[in-house]
Every structure is written in structure tokens, then in C-alpha cells.
């Protein structure tokens, strides 16, 4: 296995351990999408909140 692949897998596992599997799975799903819908694009606005709201 290539070093880059191992590094990527390690990072994904680290993210899953820190933030939970659903977040990592959702991110991978979003990046694998072949067709981006208008709803997907509109959802970008709700993906993040103003800093003060955290």
C-alpha cells in the first residue's frame, strides 16, 4: 500500500475517533457525489454557523 494511502486512512480513522463515524461518512458521501443538486448547494449555507453561535 502506498504511503499516501496509509496516511489518508490514518487521518480518516483519527477523524472518526474524534468526531464520530456519521460525520466522516457524511463527508465521504458528499465528496463522492456525482450529481450535485440545487438542494445540496443550498444546504452549504446551513453547514456553518456564525462564530458566536458555537
Amino acid at each position, binding site marked *: 500500500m502506498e504511503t499516501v494511502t496509509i496516511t489518508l486512512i490514518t487521518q480518516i480513522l483519527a477523524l472518526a475517533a474524534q468526531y464520530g463515524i456519521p460525520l466522516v461518512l457524511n463527508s465521504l458521501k458528499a*465528496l463522492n457525489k*456525482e450529481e450535485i443538486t440545487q438542494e445540496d448547494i443550498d444546504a452549504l449555507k446551513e453547514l*456553518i454557523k456564525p462564530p458566536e453561535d458555537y
Partner: protein
Amino acid sequence: MKNFKVSVYIVMLILTLMLTGCASNDITPTIYKTMYIAGSGYDTGMKTVASLQKQGIISTEQRLVINEYANKFYAPYQIAAKSLSVYNKTKDKDVYNQLTIAITEFIGAWSMFADSVNRFQPGLLGTDLPKIE
């Protein structure tokens, strides 16, 4: 040196966007994915910051500084999100230009934001966002 790297990156991004815009009418999926990664990273960073503040690791003053950097990312990100939404429906050139400017701004603001978070949680956020190709 870092500013130079960021400037080079921004110029490359604009050129790539322009070239891709000429070559293909549909750059929307690529921009969407870049924005999704950036947004998820911001969200992760801010949730971590909030958690560290609750634990007393980050003071109110330090939080205000992080929020300042975060706002420099948040504002253009929201403009880009709105612009992308309109551009996807209209393919309007002016909206595309506005979108390009907003993307350039939030990518430029990212490394400062990531640095401000990584100061308290080393290595949490990458200091570069993926390139739009």
C-alpha cells in the same frame, strides 16, 4: 514567505477557475466539494474551540481573537454559498465573478483561522484547502 505562498495559491486558483470556466460550463460540483470540505473543517474547528473554552483551556479573550479570524472566513463563505446557489440556476457571469472573489477571500482567510485553532489543538486543521481543479 507564507503570504507569498498564499498569494501564489490565490493567483493559481483564479487562473484555474477562469480556465475551467472557459473549458467547461459546469464547475459547480468542484466548487461545491471544496466548499463542503472548507465548511466541514470550519464547523469542526469551531466545535472544538467551543469545547476547549468550556474546559477552561481557551479564555474569553482568546475566543474573541479566534472569532475574529473565523468571521473573516465565515462572511465570504456565506457570500460564496449564496452566489453558487444563484450561479447554478442562472449561469450569470457577474454572479460567477462574485463567486470567484468570495472563494478567493475565504481561502485566503482559512490559513489564519486554522492557525488560530491549531494553537490550542495542534494539527486539528490543515492550513491549506484543496485546490479547485
